[in-house]
């Protein structure tokens, strides 16, 4: 096994920083890659919000540059392109690389005491595959007719040549396929590494919850990314070779046809687990951070793991709730409604365990801790509003309105992003050897959570008002004109939210090169990753540590002055 041998550190720049097989370098590559895409996706979001609050007026500053033919105004086609690419980029190129790629790569070997991933080369390939996918997606913005305009869900027949021409949609499908392939490589690597390379003495129940979250995510990745991959392949066949997997006979010139609903099934079999693919690592990180900064053991560790496992299993059997208006058989719909609602039980268990963890703790409100607490807040909002959408008789009205937009942004975007921010502030000292500014961090937190809540809660009101999503201009229909003021509120808060992220960017870049030097264990936690020197040496552990304690042994009564203990030390009897 590769973890057993220590190869000399590569010396050439290319081997060391670009085509590195070192999980730490790959983690940083994923991090930078993801953050840049988050910026791109974020700018797109700002443009979408601008258009919605000011339909048909030119985008200030960048409009003239991006949309020269319309004098800076976003035209309907470009608008569709923007929200499609915003969704695709944020999910596949922003959050996935940061949460799973960067922190998965960083945390798993260090936290379980391994020298590297079990398949380092596959690991490198995983990054370069997603990079290629990103490049294909980015390139699609510049082909004739621009990038795809069929929405990030890419429903046929709109996504076949019936609805979209040019190469944009085809390239989009190729990009998603590549990104999916990358996630599968990563997933196989994570699962095998966690199973095989845990340090001696590390039982399954000694793993930090971050690792558990990443483990379940990896399982979902390996199981469900192949489904979206096959859906994309069929779509590419339909577009390029003129097959008709998704095009019904009624709009074919020939006799045989397919079924557009097939795609919806394939997409959501993947699409619903994808929500949990993004949120499970965040849950794991949050559960750890809450324990670390409350200086208290994670409450009900095994129950938490069990709840995460239950969510993982359930995520595979609830996808039908995305299709209640498609024309699903009534009994099937009701089954999906019941199954979806059952998710609230493990969800509630997680919440109570987190809240129990901080109860009677000794809370250090660092920026990471604030973001972890923020996840409880935003995921509370997002998760609970899922109840409206799980219930068929309310979903029929709310489906495809801004209610849905608010709901999934709070769950899979805001919560996952908060998890990512918390993790960034937390792991930064070990990754880059410097501290991020706590003052700026806290400012970033408050300037994020307040406008974010306003943005997405206003969307709930818009959605309850009946405002459909993916509309270029909500003032076009009489019914929607009285709701337009909500768009203005959302947009203004969104601008503030967007601007607040610049504080993070500034903090990140400045701290990366000019921040104060970090000590080896600034947060005083016991997991293996914080027990090694900063910067982490090549091949991590000169000698593989032996684990003797759980990851969350804080404030043990017999510990004396110190309220934490490394996992390599034994608890005093």
């Amino acid at each position, binding site marked *: 096994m590769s973890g057993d041998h220590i190869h000399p550190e590569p010396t050439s720049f290319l081997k060391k920083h670009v085509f590195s097989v070192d999980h730490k370098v790959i983690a940083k590559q994923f991090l930078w890659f993801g953050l840049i895409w988050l910026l791109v996706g974020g700018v797109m979001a700002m443009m979408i919000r*601008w258009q919605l*609050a*000011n339909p048909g*007026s030119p985008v200030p500053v960048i409009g003239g540059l991006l949309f020269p033919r319309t004098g800076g105004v976003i035209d*309907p086609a470009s608008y*569709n392109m923007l929200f499609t690419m915003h969704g695709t980029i944020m999910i596949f190129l922003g959050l996935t690389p940061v949460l799973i790629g960067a922190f998965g790569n960083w945390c798993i070997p260090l936290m379980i005491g391994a020298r590297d991933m079990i398949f380092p080369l596959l690991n490198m390939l995983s990054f370069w595959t997603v990079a290629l996918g990103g490049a294909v997606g980015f390139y699609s913005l510049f082909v004739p007719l621009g990038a795809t305009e069929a929405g990030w869900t890419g429903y046929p027949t*709109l996504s076949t040549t*019936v*609805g979209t021409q040019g190469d944009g949609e085809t390239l989009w499908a190729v990009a998603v396929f590549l990104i999916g392939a990358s996630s599968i490589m990563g997933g196989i690597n994570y699962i095998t590494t966690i199973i095989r390379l845990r340090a001696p003495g590390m039982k399954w129940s000694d793993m930090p919850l971050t690792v558990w979250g990443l483990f379940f995510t990896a399982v979902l990745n390996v199981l469900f990314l192949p489904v979206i991959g096959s859906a994309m392949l069929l779509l590419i066949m339909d577009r390029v070779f003129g097959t008709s997997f998704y095009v*019904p*006979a*009624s709009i074919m010139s020939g006799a045989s046809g397919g079924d*557009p609903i097939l795609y919806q099934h394939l997409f959501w079999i993947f699409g619903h687990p994808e929500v949990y693919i993004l949120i499970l690592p965040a849950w794991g990180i949050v559960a750890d951070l809450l324990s670390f900064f*409350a*200086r*208290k053991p994670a*409450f009900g560790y095994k*129950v938490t793991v069990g709840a995460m496992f239950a969510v993982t299993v359930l995520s595979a059997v609830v996808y039908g709730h995305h299709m209640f*208006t*498609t*024309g699903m058989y009534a009994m099937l719909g*009701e089954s999906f409604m019941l199954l979806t609602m*059952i998710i609230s*039980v493990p969800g*509630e268990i997680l919440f*109570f*365990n987190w809240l129990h963890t901080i*109860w009677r*703790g000794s*809370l250090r*409100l660092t920026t990471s801790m604030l973001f972890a607490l923020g996840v*409880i*807040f935003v995921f509370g*909002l997002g998760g609970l509003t899922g109840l409206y959408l799980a*219930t*068929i*008789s*309310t979903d*029929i*009205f709310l489906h495809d309105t801004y209610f849905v937009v608010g709901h999934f942004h709070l769950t899979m975007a805001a919560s996952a992003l908060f998890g990512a921010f918390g993790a960034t502030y937390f792991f930064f000292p070990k990754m880059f050897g410097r501290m991020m*500014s706590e003052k*700026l961090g806290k400012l970033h937190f408050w300037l994020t959570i307040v406008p974010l809540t306003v943005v997405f809660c206003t969307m709930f*009101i818009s959605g*309850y*008002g*009946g405002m*459909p999503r993916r509309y*270029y*201009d909500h003032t076009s229909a*009489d*019914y929607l004109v009285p709701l337009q*003021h909500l768009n203005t509120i959302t*947009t*203004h808060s969104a*601008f503030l939210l967007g601007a607040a992220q610049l*504080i993070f960017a*500034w903090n990140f870049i400045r701290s990366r090169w000019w921040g104060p*030097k970090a000590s080896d264990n600034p947060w005083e936690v016991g997991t293996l990753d914080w027990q090694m020197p900063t910067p982490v040496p090549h091949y991590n552990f000169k000698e593989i540590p032996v684990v003797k304690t759980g990851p969350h042994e804080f*404030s043990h*009564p017999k510990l004396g002055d110190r309220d934490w203990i490394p996992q390599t030390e034994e608890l005093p009897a």
Partner: protein
Amino acid sequence: MNALRSLFSFPTKAVAAVLATPLALGLLSAGATAQDVAKRWGPTDPASTFGEDFQYLFWLITTLVSVSFAIVCVLLLIPVLRDRAKPGKKAHYDHGSSLHDKRFTAVVSLIVFVVLDAWVLVVAMKDLREGYWNIPAPDDEKTYKVEVLAQQWAWNFRATGADGEFGTADDILSTNTLVVPKDRPVSLNLTSKDVIHAFFLPDMRVKRDANPGAVNIAWFQPVVDGEFDILCAELCGYAHYQMHGKLQVLEKGVFDEWEQEASRLAVAAHDAEDTEAHWAWEWQE
């Protein structure tokens, strides 16, 4: 913790500049959207028999969700305010793995399942059986049947006209305008020529996809007369946002007269030889 204290100076100006940007953008957009229109903070009053059930269930869920969220917030705020780190203070050492804790978890789970899920589920199932899935019998005289053929970017409607049969000369055809009677169940057969659309009547609390290649079914019963908007709720291309029509609900007497007249005009406009213009399908239920 030493490292934490040695922070570099606070860049006040940079932060101020960052925050000024959205304010400036906000001012720009405030000028562009200054409109004197009535504002609304929710949907219009329900105009169909589904309306009350929907409102009731929506607010039931809102109440349950609000209470749950309030509990979460309180349990979040108490430790944040009370249990902050102080010198010499140690956290309570508790793994939460005792039998007592497990029992607590089980009880809370049960409460959540019964109150949050089962309650809503029971109400929803009742609503569905009496409402959305209680599709009116097509043979019933009272049922007003409409075939909806969606396309990029318009709604084509076909009603049977006076003879109650589809595919005859007196079928009432219209684009983007649908006229229906008040207090009679309106049954819809939906399909599409090209991409997926969704037939959305916000005032009636109805939404159903129109899929190409298959017929989808929906129904509603208007209880208020007047004019309402028809929207498309499934991304269908560039002019998705412009794909709307008008629903006109007429009182019984007025409607019957309208139907007679519409049929008469339809017969006049019918061209038996122009087969390309004809479309209709066997009623699906």
